[in-house]
Protein backbone atom coordinates (compact mmCIF):
# COMPACT_ATOMS: atom_id res chain seq x y z
CA UNK A 1 0.00 0.00 0.00
CA UNK A 2 1.78 3.10 -1.28
CA UNK A 3 1.54 6.32 0.70
CA UNK A 4 0.89 9.70 -0.91
CA UNK A 5 2.39 12.91 0.46
CA UNK A 6 2.57 16.33 -1.22
CA UNK A 7 1.43 14.80 -4.48
CA UNK A 8 4.20 12.21 -4.52
CA UNK A 9 3.66 8.49 -4.10
CA UNK A 10 6.00 6.35 -2.02
CA UNK A 11 6.23 2.56 -2.04
CA UNK A 12 5.79 0.78 1.32
CA UNK A 13 5.62 -2.83 2.43
CA UNK A 14 2.46 -4.58 3.68
CA UNK A 15 2.70 -2.88 7.05
CA UNK A 16 3.39 0.61 5.81
CA UNK A 17 7.18 0.63 6.25
CA UNK A 18 8.93 2.65 3.59
CA UNK A 19 10.33 0.45 0.81
CA UNK A 20 13.23 2.75 0.01
CA UNK A 21 15.14 4.43 2.83
CA UNK A 22 16.23 7.30 0.57
CA UNK A 23 12.62 8.30 -0.12
CA UNK A 24 12.26 9.57 3.42
CA UNK A 25 11.48 13.16 4.29
CA UNK A 26 9.98 14.92 7.30
CA UNK A 27 6.56 15.40 5.75
CA UNK A 28 6.39 11.69 5.09
CA UNK A 29 7.10 10.95 8.76
CA UNK A 30 4.39 13.42 9.79
CA UNK A 31 1.90 11.83 7.42
CA UNK A 32 2.65 8.32 8.70
CA UNK A 33 2.20 9.49 12.28
CA UNK A 34 -1.02 11.29 11.46
CA UNK A 35 -2.41 8.13 9.93
CA UNK A 36 -1.86 6.52 13.36
CA UNK A 37 -3.42 9.48 15.15
CA UNK A 38 -0.09 10.79 16.46
CA UNK A 39 1.26 14.33 16.17
CA UNK A 40 5.03 14.42 16.24
CA UNK A 41 6.56 16.84 18.73
CA UNK A 42 10.22 17.67 19.33
CA UNK A 43 10.69 14.65 21.60
CA UNK A 44 9.47 12.31 18.88
CA UNK A 45 11.88 14.01 16.50
CA UNK A 46 14.83 13.47 18.85
CA UNK A 47 14.14 9.73 18.68
CA UNK A 48 13.47 9.68 14.95
CA UNK A 49 16.61 11.66 14.15
CA UNK A 50 18.73 9.44 16.37
CA UNK A 51 17.33 6.33 14.70
CA UNK A 52 18.23 7.69 11.29
CA UNK A 53 21.75 8.65 12.35
CA UNK A 54 22.32 5.29 13.96
CA UNK A 55 20.96 3.42 10.96
CA UNK A 56 23.21 5.30 8.62
CA UNK A 57 26.23 4.15 10.60
CA UNK A 58 25.16 0.62 11.51
CA UNK A 59 22.49 -0.45 8.93
CA UNK A 60 20.19 -1.52 11.75
CA UNK A 61 17.97 0.20 14.29
CA UNK A 62 19.66 0.61 17.68
CA UNK A 63 19.10 -1.97 20.42
CA UNK A 64 16.78 -0.77 23.14
CA UNK A 65 19.60 -0.05 25.61
CA UNK A 66 21.57 1.87 23.00
CA UNK A 67 18.48 3.95 22.28
CA UNK A 68 17.52 4.64 25.89
CA UNK A 69 21.07 5.65 26.72
CA UNK A 70 21.26 8.07 23.79
CA UNK A 71 17.86 9.59 24.54
CA UNK A 72 18.79 9.88 28.23
CA UNK A 73 21.84 11.89 27.23
CA UNK A 74 19.85 14.18 24.94
CA UNK A 75 16.63 14.67 26.88
CA UNK A 76 17.66 14.02 30.48
CA UNK A 77 18.23 10.91 32.57
CA UNK A 78 14.57 10.65 33.57
CA UNK A 79 13.74 10.04 29.91
CA UNK A 80 16.42 7.46 29.26
CA UNK A 81 14.19 4.43 29.75
CA UNK A 82 11.81 2.36 27.71
CA UNK A 83 8.79 3.46 29.74
CA UNK A 84 9.27 6.97 28.41
CA UNK A 85 9.79 5.67 24.87
CA UNK A 86 6.58 3.69 25.08
CA UNK A 87 4.77 6.84 26.16
CA UNK A 88 6.05 8.51 22.99
CA UNK A 89 5.49 5.49 20.76
CA UNK A 90 2.75 3.33 22.28
CA UNK A 91 3.06 0.61 19.62
CA UNK A 92 6.66 0.11 20.65
CA UNK A 93 9.66 2.36 19.99
CA UNK A 94 11.47 -0.26 17.92
CA UNK A 95 8.60 -0.69 15.52
CA UNK A 96 6.57 2.50 15.48
CA UNK A 97 9.53 4.90 15.63
CA UNK A 98 11.37 2.92 12.96
CA UNK A 99 8.39 3.25 10.70
CA UNK A 100 8.25 7.04 11.02
CA UNK A 101 12.03 7.19 10.56
CA UNK A 102 11.71 5.32 7.29
CA UNK A 103 13.72 2.32 8.53
CA UNK A 104 12.77 -1.29 7.90
CA UNK A 105 10.96 -3.09 10.69
CA UNK A 106 13.22 -5.04 13.06
CA UNK A 107 12.74 -8.77 12.51
CA UNK A 108 13.29 -11.82 14.66
CA UNK A 109 12.08 -12.68 18.14
CA UNK A 110 11.42 -9.09 19.10
Amino acid sequence: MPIEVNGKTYETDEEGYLANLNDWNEDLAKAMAEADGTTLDENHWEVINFLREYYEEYQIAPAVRVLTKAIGKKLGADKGNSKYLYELFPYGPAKQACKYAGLPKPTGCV
Partner: protein
Amino acid sequence: MADFETPEVKEYLEIPALKQGVMSHSKPFVSKEQFQEPLGFPGELVENWQQVAVDKLGELLKTNRGLRVFMDSCVKCGACTDKCHYFLGTSDPRNMPVARQDLLRGVYRRYHTLPGKLFPKLVGAMDLTEEVLDQWYSYFHQCSECRRCSVYCPYGIDTAEVTMATRDIMNAVGKGQKYSNEIIGKAFKIGNNLGLPEHALADTLEGLEEEVKEDTGVDVRYPLDEKGAEVLLVTPSADFFAEPHVDGLIGYGKVFHQAGISWTLSSHASEAANFGVFIGSMENMKRIAMRIREAALDLGVKRIVFGECGHAWRVAYSFLNTLAGPFDFLDPRYPVPQHICEVTYDLIQRGALTLDKSANDHRRVTFHDSCNVARASRMGDIPGGQFVIPREIIKAVCNHYYDMAPDTIGEATYCCGGGGGLLTDDLMELRVKGALPRMQALREVTEENGVTHLAAICAICKSQFSKVLPYYGFQMDQIVSVHQLVSDAIVMAPRQ
Protein backbone atom coordinates in the same frame (compact mmCIF):
# COMPACT_ATOMS: atom_id res chain seq x y z
CA MET B 1 -5.17 -1.22 16.00
CA ALA B 2 -7.04 -4.17 17.38
CA ASP B 3 -10.05 -5.16 15.32
CA PHE B 4 -10.81 -8.24 17.41
CA GLU B 5 -11.91 -8.92 20.94
CA THR B 6 -9.55 -10.16 23.61
CA PRO B 7 -11.04 -13.32 25.11
CA GLU B 8 -12.49 -12.92 28.57
CA VAL B 9 -10.56 -14.57 31.39
CA LYS B 10 -13.20 -16.35 33.45
CA GLU B 11 -12.94 -18.22 36.73
CA TYR B 12 -12.09 -21.45 34.94
CA LEU B 13 -10.80 -22.16 31.49
CA GLU B 14 -13.87 -23.18 29.51
CA ILE B 15 -14.00 -25.37 26.45
CA PRO B 16 -15.60 -22.91 24.07
CA ALA B 17 -18.76 -23.39 22.03
CA LEU B 18 -17.64 -24.06 18.45
CA LYS B 19 -17.57 -21.26 15.91
CA GLN B 20 -16.97 -22.84 12.54
CA GLY B 21 -14.42 -21.07 10.34
CA VAL B 22 -14.13 -18.05 12.61
CA MET B 23 -10.34 -17.95 12.11
CA SER B 24 -10.21 -18.83 8.41
CA HIS B 25 -9.28 -15.20 7.67
CA SER B 26 -6.10 -15.45 9.75
CA LYS B 27 -3.13 -15.66 7.42
CA PRO B 28 0.40 -14.33 7.70
CA PHE B 29 1.91 -12.30 4.85
CA VAL B 30 2.99 -14.51 1.99
CA SER B 31 6.71 -14.56 1.27
CA LYS B 32 8.16 -12.93 -1.83
CA GLU B 33 10.78 -13.98 -4.32
CA GLN B 34 13.53 -12.03 -2.57
CA PHE B 35 12.92 -14.00 0.65
CA GLN B 36 12.23 -17.36 -1.01
CA GLU B 37 15.27 -17.57 -3.23
CA PRO B 38 18.06 -17.56 -0.61
CA LEU B 39 16.33 -20.57 1.00
CA GLY B 40 16.12 -22.50 -2.25
CA PHE B 41 12.35 -22.15 -2.69
CA PRO B 42 10.42 -20.96 -5.76
CA GLY B 43 9.59 -17.24 -5.65
CA GLU B 44 5.89 -17.65 -6.30
CA LEU B 45 3.27 -20.37 -6.62
CA VAL B 46 4.53 -22.69 -9.34
CA GLU B 47 2.25 -23.55 -12.24
CA ASN B 48 1.96 -27.28 -11.60
CA TRP B 49 1.76 -26.77 -7.84
CA GLN B 50 -0.64 -29.67 -7.20
CA GLN B 51 1.76 -32.18 -8.67
CA VAL B 52 4.75 -30.63 -6.92
CA ALA B 53 2.89 -30.75 -3.60
CA VAL B 54 1.81 -34.35 -4.03
CA ASP B 55 5.36 -35.37 -5.00
CA LYS B 56 6.86 -33.45 -2.11
CA LEU B 57 4.47 -35.16 0.30
CA GLY B 58 5.50 -38.50 -1.21
CA GLU B 59 9.14 -37.65 -0.68
CA LEU B 60 8.53 -36.66 2.94
CA LEU B 61 6.61 -39.89 3.58
CA LYS B 62 9.68 -41.80 2.42
CA THR B 63 12.29 -39.80 4.31
CA ASN B 64 10.26 -39.31 7.46
CA ARG B 65 8.68 -42.63 8.41
CA GLY B 66 7.12 -40.99 11.46
CA LEU B 67 5.02 -38.82 9.18
CA ARG B 68 3.42 -41.85 7.52
CA VAL B 69 2.65 -43.33 10.94
CA PHE B 70 1.10 -40.02 12.02
CA MET B 71 -0.97 -39.96 8.82
CA ASP B 72 -2.19 -43.54 9.28
CA SER B 73 -2.67 -43.97 12.99
CA CYS B 74 -5.21 -41.35 14.07
CA VAL B 75 -8.38 -43.05 15.31
CA LYS B 76 -10.32 -39.82 15.91
CA CYS B 77 -10.57 -40.49 19.65
CA GLY B 78 -10.81 -36.79 20.38
CA ALA B 79 -8.24 -36.68 23.20
CA CYS B 80 -6.42 -33.78 21.54
CA THR B 81 -9.45 -31.67 20.73
CA ASP B 82 -9.45 -29.43 23.81
CA LYS B 83 -5.68 -29.37 24.37
CA CYS B 84 -4.67 -26.66 21.90
CA HIS B 85 -4.33 -23.09 23.16
CA TYR B 86 -5.37 -21.79 19.73
CA PHE B 87 -8.56 -23.82 19.79
CA LEU B 88 -9.31 -22.75 23.36
CA GLY B 89 -8.66 -19.11 22.52
CA THR B 90 -10.36 -18.92 19.12
CA SER B 91 -13.28 -21.42 19.30
CA ASP B 92 -12.54 -22.46 15.72
CA PRO B 93 -13.00 -26.25 15.49
CA ARG B 94 -10.42 -26.38 12.69
CA ASN B 95 -7.90 -25.56 15.42
CA MET B 96 -8.59 -28.84 17.15
CA PRO B 97 -5.30 -30.58 16.45
CA VAL B 98 -7.00 -33.54 14.78
CA ALA B 99 -9.02 -31.28 12.49
CA ARG B 100 -5.98 -29.26 11.49
CA GLN B 101 -4.00 -32.43 10.81
CA ASP B 102 -6.88 -33.79 8.71
CA LEU B 103 -6.27 -31.00 6.20
CA LEU B 104 -3.08 -32.85 5.30
CA ARG B 105 -4.35 -36.33 6.13
CA GLY B 106 -7.18 -36.07 3.60
CA VAL B 107 -4.74 -35.16 0.84
CA TYR B 108 -2.39 -37.95 1.93
CA ARG B 109 -5.23 -40.47 1.63
CA ARG B 110 -6.27 -39.19 -1.79
CA TYR B 111 -2.85 -39.44 -3.44
CA HIS B 112 -0.81 -41.86 -1.37
CA THR B 113 -3.16 -44.66 -0.26
CA LEU B 114 -4.91 -47.24 -2.42
CA PRO B 115 -8.41 -46.88 -0.91
CA GLY B 116 -8.13 -43.11 -1.25
CA LYS B 117 -7.18 -43.40 -4.91
CA LEU B 118 -10.06 -45.80 -5.62
CA PHE B 119 -12.85 -44.67 -3.28
CA PRO B 120 -11.92 -41.22 -2.01
CA LYS B 121 -15.31 -40.37 -0.56
CA LEU B 122 -15.47 -43.50 1.57
CA VAL B 123 -12.17 -42.85 3.38
CA GLY B 124 -12.25 -39.09 3.93
CA ALA B 125 -9.83 -38.44 1.09
CA MET B 126 -9.66 -34.93 -0.28
CA ASP B 127 -8.59 -33.45 -3.64
CA LEU B 128 -5.81 -30.92 -3.34
CA THR B 129 -7.66 -27.84 -4.57
CA GLU B 130 -6.77 -24.18 -4.32
CA GLU B 131 -9.25 -23.95 -1.46
CA VAL B 132 -7.40 -26.67 0.44
CA LEU B 133 -4.06 -24.95 -0.15
CA ASP B 134 -5.63 -21.80 1.21
CA GLN B 135 -6.81 -23.63 4.31
CA TRP B 136 -3.35 -25.14 4.74
CA TYR B 137 -1.84 -21.69 4.64
CA SER B 138 -4.27 -20.35 7.17
CA TYR B 139 -4.48 -23.18 9.70
CA PHE B 140 -0.93 -24.54 9.55
CA HIS B 141 -0.01 -21.01 10.58
CA GLN B 142 -2.31 -21.40 13.56
CA CYS B 143 -0.19 -24.16 15.10
CA SER B 144 2.87 -23.14 17.08
CA GLU B 145 4.35 -26.65 16.92
CA CYS B 146 4.22 -26.68 20.73
CA ARG B 147 3.23 -30.36 20.91
CA ARG B 148 0.93 -30.09 23.90
CA CYS B 149 -1.70 -32.13 22.05
CA SER B 150 0.88 -34.85 21.41
CA VAL B 151 1.28 -35.39 25.16
CA TYR B 152 -2.37 -36.41 25.36
CA CYS B 153 -2.52 -38.42 22.10
CA PRO B 154 -2.73 -42.14 22.93
CA TYR B 155 -0.85 -42.87 19.69
CA GLY B 156 1.76 -40.20 20.26
CA ILE B 157 1.01 -38.42 17.00
CA ASP B 158 3.35 -35.48 16.79
CA THR B 159 1.28 -32.58 15.49
CA ALA B 160 4.35 -30.39 15.11
CA GLU B 161 5.74 -32.84 12.55
CA VAL B 162 2.52 -32.63 10.56
CA THR B 163 2.62 -28.83 10.61
CA MET B 164 6.31 -28.78 9.67
CA ALA B 165 5.71 -31.18 6.77
CA THR B 166 2.84 -29.09 5.43
CA ARG B 167 4.87 -25.87 5.67
CA ASP B 168 7.72 -27.64 3.90
CA ILE B 169 5.34 -28.62 1.10
CA MET B 170 3.98 -25.07 0.87
CA ASN B 171 7.51 -23.71 0.52
CA ALA B 172 8.21 -26.28 -2.17
CA VAL B 173 5.30 -24.98 -4.24
CA GLY B 174 6.29 -21.36 -3.64
CA LYS B 175 3.80 -20.37 -0.93
CA GLY B 176 6.06 -19.55 1.99
CA GLN B 177 5.55 -17.34 5.00
CA LYS B 178 7.27 -13.96 4.87
CA TYR B 179 8.12 -13.68 8.58
CA SER B 180 10.08 -16.93 8.94
CA ASN B 181 11.69 -16.91 5.51
CA GLU B 182 12.88 -13.31 5.60
CA ILE B 183 14.45 -14.06 8.98
CA ILE B 184 16.23 -17.21 7.82
CA GLY B 185 17.66 -15.19 4.93
CA LYS B 186 19.06 -12.67 7.40
CA ALA B 187 20.65 -15.42 9.50
CA PHE B 188 22.46 -16.59 6.35
CA LYS B 189 23.43 -13.16 5.11
CA ILE B 190 24.22 -11.27 8.29
CA GLY B 191 24.53 -13.97 10.93
CA ASN B 192 21.38 -13.41 12.94
CA ASN B 193 17.60 -13.07 12.71
CA LEU B 194 17.64 -9.37 13.44
CA GLY B 195 20.13 -8.47 10.75
CA LEU B 196 22.49 -6.99 13.34
CA PRO B 197 25.84 -6.54 11.59
CA GLU B 198 29.14 -7.19 13.34
CA HIS B 199 30.04 -3.56 14.08
CA ALA B 200 26.57 -2.84 15.48
CA LEU B 201 26.83 -5.93 17.69
CA ALA B 202 30.26 -4.84 18.91
CA ASP B 203 28.92 -1.36 19.69
CA THR B 204 25.91 -2.81 21.54
CA LEU B 205 28.08 -5.11 23.65
CA GLU B 206 30.44 -2.26 24.49
CA GLY B 207 27.44 -0.30 25.72
CA LEU B 208 26.43 -3.19 27.95
CA GLU B 209 29.90 -3.34 29.48
CA GLU B 210 29.62 0.35 30.34
CA GLU B 211 26.15 -0.15 31.78
CA VAL B 212 27.20 -3.03 34.04
CA LYS B 213 30.27 -1.10 35.14
CA GLU B 214 28.07 1.85 36.12
CA ASP B 215 25.65 -0.44 37.98
CA THR B 216 28.13 -2.64 39.82
CA GLY B 217 31.52 -0.98 39.62
CA VAL B 218 32.87 -4.20 38.16
CA ASP B 219 34.41 -4.72 34.73
CA VAL B 220 32.21 -7.51 33.39
CA ARG B 221 33.06 -8.34 29.79
CA TYR B 222 30.71 -9.14 26.92
CA PRO B 223 33.34 -10.36 24.44
CA LEU B 224 32.88 -10.86 20.71
CA ASP B 225 34.97 -13.15 18.48
CA GLU B 226 37.69 -13.79 21.07
CA LYS B 227 39.80 -16.72 19.96
CA GLY B 228 40.82 -19.19 22.61
CA ALA B 229 37.89 -18.51 24.95
CA GLU B 230 36.68 -21.60 26.78
CA VAL B 231 32.97 -21.12 26.04
CA LEU B 232 31.16 -20.06 22.88
CA LEU B 233 27.83 -18.60 23.94
CA VAL B 234 25.16 -18.88 21.27
CA THR B 235 22.13 -16.84 22.17
CA PRO B 236 19.08 -15.40 20.40
CA SER B 237 19.83 -12.02 18.80
CA ALA B 238 16.83 -10.65 20.69
CA ASP B 239 19.11 -10.83 23.74
CA PHE B 240 21.18 -8.03 22.22
CA PHE B 241 18.25 -5.96 21.15
CA ALA B 242 15.11 -6.15 23.23
CA GLU B 243 13.83 -6.01 26.78
CA PRO B 244 13.59 -8.06 28.98
CA HIS B 245 15.94 -10.26 26.93
CA VAL B 246 18.97 -8.04 27.36
CA ASP B 247 18.75 -8.27 31.14
CA GLY B 248 19.15 -12.01 30.77
CA LEU B 249 22.26 -11.53 28.63
CA ILE B 250 23.67 -9.21 31.27
CA GLY B 251 23.03 -12.02 33.75
CA TYR B 252 24.90 -14.65 31.68
CA GLY B 253 27.91 -12.33 31.58
CA LYS B 254 27.84 -11.84 35.33
CA VAL B 255 27.64 -15.60 35.93
CA PHE B 256 30.64 -16.29 33.66
CA HIS B 257 32.53 -13.42 35.29
CA GLN B 258 31.96 -14.62 38.83
CA ALA B 259 32.78 -18.21 37.90
CA GLY B 260 35.97 -17.14 36.16
CA ILE B 261 34.95 -18.84 32.91
CA SER B 262 36.33 -17.18 29.76
CA TRP B 263 33.67 -16.90 27.10
CA THR B 264 32.86 -15.25 23.82
CA LEU B 265 30.04 -14.51 21.46
CA SER B 266 30.52 -15.01 17.73
CA SER B 267 29.59 -12.57 14.98
CA HIS B 268 29.38 -15.51 12.56
CA ALA B 269 26.90 -17.39 14.76
CA SER B 270 25.29 -14.43 16.49
CA GLU B 271 21.99 -16.25 16.66
CA ALA B 272 20.80 -19.32 18.57
CA ALA B 273 17.41 -19.47 16.88
CA ASN B 274 16.98 -21.88 14.01
CA PHE B 275 13.79 -21.03 12.14
CA GLY B 276 14.55 -23.89 9.77
CA VAL B 277 12.78 -26.11 12.28
CA PHE B 278 9.63 -23.95 12.15
CA ILE B 279 9.28 -24.31 8.38
CA GLY B 280 10.19 -28.00 8.50
CA SER B 281 13.13 -27.56 6.17
CA MET B 282 15.95 -29.94 6.99
CA GLU B 283 18.30 -28.28 4.47
CA ASN B 284 17.86 -24.83 5.97
CA MET B 285 18.03 -26.16 9.51
CA LYS B 286 21.33 -27.78 8.69
CA ARG B 287 22.73 -24.68 7.05
CA ILE B 288 21.81 -22.54 10.04
CA ALA B 289 23.25 -25.09 12.49
CA MET B 290 26.54 -25.32 10.59
CA ARG B 291 27.31 -21.69 11.48
CA ILE B 292 27.64 -22.74 15.10
CA ARG B 293 30.08 -25.52 14.27
CA GLU B 294 32.11 -23.20 12.07
CA ALA B 295 32.25 -20.52 14.78
CA ALA B 296 33.27 -23.05 17.46
CA LEU B 297 36.09 -24.39 15.30
CA ASP B 298 37.24 -20.96 14.21
CA LEU B 299 37.34 -19.60 17.75
CA GLY B 300 38.89 -22.77 19.16
CA VAL B 301 36.45 -23.03 22.07
CA LYS B 302 36.12 -26.03 24.39
CA ARG B 303 32.42 -25.75 25.15
CA ILE B 304 29.25 -24.51 23.47
CA VAL B 305 26.61 -22.97 25.71
CA PHE B 306 23.14 -21.88 24.59
CA GLY B 307 21.38 -18.84 26.01
CA GLU B 308 17.68 -18.56 26.82
CA CYS B 309 15.93 -19.64 23.61
CA GLY B 310 13.27 -22.35 23.54
CA HIS B 311 13.34 -23.87 20.07
CA ALA B 312 17.10 -23.29 19.79
CA TRP B 313 17.50 -25.59 22.75
CA ARG B 314 15.30 -28.17 21.05
CA VAL B 315 17.43 -28.04 17.93
CA ALA B 316 20.63 -27.98 19.99
CA TYR B 317 19.71 -30.74 22.39
CA SER B 318 17.96 -33.07 19.97
CA PHE B 319 19.50 -32.43 16.56
CA LEU B 320 22.76 -30.51 16.73
CA ASN B 321 24.99 -33.53 16.54
CA THR B 322 23.12 -34.91 13.53
CA LEU B 323 22.96 -31.54 11.80
CA ALA B 324 26.47 -30.26 12.44
CA GLY B 325 28.39 -32.94 14.34
CA PRO B 326 30.51 -34.64 15.39
CA PHE B 327 31.67 -32.29 18.12
CA ASP B 328 34.64 -34.40 19.12
CA PHE B 329 36.81 -31.28 19.30
CA LEU B 330 34.97 -30.04 22.39
CA ASP B 331 35.79 -30.88 26.02
CA PRO B 332 34.03 -34.21 26.69
CA ARG B 333 33.66 -33.45 30.39
CA TYR B 334 30.80 -31.07 29.62
CA PRO B 335 27.48 -31.77 27.90
CA VAL B 336 27.56 -30.94 24.20
CA PRO B 337 25.89 -28.53 23.95
CA GLN B 338 25.13 -27.11 27.37
CA HIS B 339 22.29 -24.81 28.44
CA ILE B 340 23.10 -21.61 30.31
CA CYS B 341 20.70 -22.80 33.03
CA GLU B 342 22.77 -25.97 33.44
CA VAL B 343 25.90 -23.84 33.81
CA THR B 344 24.33 -21.57 36.42
CA TYR B 345 22.64 -24.41 38.30
CA ASP B 346 25.91 -26.30 38.49
CA LEU B 347 27.71 -23.25 39.87
CA ILE B 348 24.97 -22.68 42.44
CA GLN B 349 25.18 -26.35 43.54
CA ARG B 350 28.92 -26.00 44.00
CA GLY B 351 28.54 -22.78 45.99
CA ALA B 352 30.54 -20.90 43.38
CA LEU B 353 28.16 -17.93 43.25
CA THR B 354 27.27 -15.57 46.10
CA LEU B 355 23.59 -14.78 45.86
CA ASP B 356 21.53 -12.22 47.70
CA LYS B 357 17.94 -13.38 47.37
CA SER B 358 16.59 -10.27 49.03
CA ALA B 359 17.52 -8.32 45.90
CA ASN B 360 14.42 -9.90 44.34
CA ASP B 361 12.15 -9.35 47.33
CA HIS B 362 10.08 -6.87 45.37
CA ARG B 363 9.11 -9.71 43.05
CA ARG B 364 6.84 -12.70 43.54
CA VAL B 365 7.73 -15.00 40.71
CA THR B 366 6.22 -17.82 38.69
CA PHE B 367 7.84 -19.74 35.83
CA HIS B 368 6.48 -20.32 32.34
CA ASP B 369 7.79 -23.58 30.87
CA SER B 370 8.54 -22.90 27.22
CA CYS B 371 7.09 -25.59 24.97
CA ASN B 372 10.23 -26.64 23.13
CA VAL B 373 12.28 -26.90 26.31
CA ALA B 374 9.49 -28.71 28.14
CA ARG B 375 8.44 -31.27 25.54
CA ALA B 376 11.40 -31.66 23.24
CA SER B 377 14.51 -31.55 25.37
CA ARG B 378 15.98 -32.07 28.78
CA MET B 379 18.47 -30.40 31.10
CA GLY B 380 20.89 -31.98 33.53
CA ASP B 381 21.06 -35.71 34.11
CA ILE B 382 17.68 -36.47 35.64
CA PRO B 383 14.35 -37.01 33.89
CA GLY B 384 12.40 -33.76 34.05
CA GLY B 385 15.59 -31.78 34.64
CA GLN B 386 14.30 -29.15 32.24
CA PHE B 387 11.51 -28.42 34.74
CA VAL B 388 13.61 -28.72 37.91
CA ILE B 389 16.72 -26.75 36.96
CA PRO B 390 15.15 -23.39 35.97
CA ARG B 391 12.91 -23.51 39.04
CA GLU B 392 15.82 -24.33 41.35
CA ILE B 393 17.75 -21.39 39.91
CA ILE B 394 14.81 -19.05 40.52
CA LYS B 395 14.37 -20.36 44.07
CA ALA B 396 18.07 -19.83 44.73
CA VAL B 397 17.78 -16.17 43.76
CA CYS B 398 14.24 -15.29 44.88
CA ASN B 399 12.47 -15.67 48.21
CA HIS B 400 8.99 -15.81 46.68
CA TYR B 401 8.29 -18.47 44.08
CA TYR B 402 4.91 -19.97 43.16
CA ASP B 403 4.00 -22.45 40.44
CA MET B 404 0.97 -22.01 38.23
CA ALA B 405 -1.71 -24.76 38.12
CA PRO B 406 -0.17 -28.20 37.52
CA ASP B 407 -2.08 -28.86 34.28
CA THR B 408 -0.57 -25.70 32.77
CA ILE B 409 3.11 -26.25 33.53
CA GLY B 410 5.76 -28.94 33.09
CA GLU B 411 5.04 -31.21 30.16
CA ALA B 412 1.45 -29.90 30.15
CA THR B 413 2.63 -26.33 29.70
CA TYR B 414 0.65 -24.02 27.45
CA CYS B 415 2.40 -22.22 24.63
CA CYS B 416 2.83 -18.47 25.06
CA GLY B 417 0.81 -18.10 21.86
CA GLY B 418 3.62 -16.81 19.66
CA GLY B 419 5.89 -19.82 19.07
CA GLY B 420 6.66 -21.81 15.94
CA GLY B 421 7.20 -18.87 13.59
CA LEU B 422 4.00 -17.02 14.49
CA LEU B 423 5.57 -14.12 16.43
CA THR B 424 4.62 -11.59 13.83
CA ASP B 425 2.33 -8.57 13.94
CA ASP B 426 0.25 -9.84 11.03
CA LEU B 427 -0.94 -12.65 13.34
CA MET B 428 -1.71 -10.46 16.35
CA GLU B 429 -5.29 -11.65 16.73
CA LEU B 430 -4.13 -15.26 16.84
CA ARG B 431 -1.33 -14.43 19.28
CA VAL B 432 -3.63 -12.62 21.69
CA LYS B 433 -6.30 -15.31 21.57
CA GLY B 434 -3.79 -18.14 21.84
CA ALA B 435 -2.37 -16.65 25.03
CA LEU B 436 -5.67 -17.14 26.84
CA PRO B 437 -4.86 -20.40 28.70
CA ARG B 438 -1.54 -19.03 29.96
CA MET B 439 -3.15 -15.74 30.97
CA GLN B 440 -5.83 -17.68 32.84
CA ALA B 441 -3.21 -19.58 34.83
CA LEU B 442 -1.26 -16.39 35.48
CA ARG B 443 -4.39 -14.64 36.70
CA GLU B 444 -4.93 -17.45 39.22
CA VAL B 445 -1.47 -17.19 40.82
CA THR B 446 -1.72 -13.41 40.73
CA GLU B 447 -4.91 -13.54 42.74
CA GLU B 448 -4.00 -16.41 45.04
CA ASN B 449 -0.30 -15.81 45.65
CA GLY B 450 0.22 -12.21 44.71
CA VAL B 451 2.55 -13.17 41.87
CA THR B 452 4.00 -10.10 40.18
CA HIS B 453 6.39 -11.57 37.59
CA LEU B 454 6.42 -14.31 35.01
CA ALA B 455 9.93 -15.64 34.28
CA ALA B 456 10.82 -17.44 31.05
CA ILE B 457 13.82 -18.87 29.19
CA CYS B 458 12.75 -18.24 25.61
CA ALA B 459 13.13 -15.11 23.48
CA ILE B 460 9.85 -15.73 21.69
CA CYS B 461 7.94 -16.20 24.95
CA LYS B 462 9.44 -13.00 26.32
CA SER B 463 8.53 -10.90 23.28
CA GLN B 464 5.11 -12.48 22.99
CA PHE B 465 4.27 -11.81 26.64
CA SER B 466 5.56 -8.22 26.48
CA LYS B 467 3.07 -7.71 23.71
CA VAL B 468 0.03 -9.65 24.93
CA LEU B 469 0.14 -9.11 28.70
CA PRO B 470 -1.43 -5.62 28.33
CA TYR B 471 -4.36 -7.08 26.37
CA TYR B 472 -5.23 -9.06 29.51
CA GLY B 473 -4.83 -6.20 31.97
CA PHE B 474 -1.25 -6.99 33.01
CA GLN B 475 1.81 -4.78 32.53
CA MET B 476 4.27 -5.49 29.73
CA ASP B 477 7.24 -5.52 32.14
CA GLN B 478 5.82 -8.35 34.24
CA ILE B 479 7.73 -10.76 32.01
CA VAL B 480 11.37 -11.26 33.01
CA SER B 481 14.32 -13.38 31.95
CA VAL B 482 15.41 -16.08 34.39
CA HIS B 483 18.97 -14.74 34.21
CA GLN B 484 17.65 -11.26 34.90
CA LEU B 485 16.63 -12.58 38.33
CA VAL B 486 20.09 -14.14 38.67
CA SER B 487 21.66 -10.87 37.53
CA ASP B 488 19.86 -8.87 40.22
CA ALA B 489 20.76 -11.31 43.02
CA ILE B 490 24.35 -12.16 42.15
CA VAL B 491 26.83 -10.42 44.44
CA MET B 492 29.58 -8.99 42.28
CA ALA B 493 33.04 -8.52 43.65
CA PRO B 494 35.96 -7.16 41.70
CA ARG B 495 38.11 -10.13 40.69
CA GLN B 496 41.43 -10.31 42.49
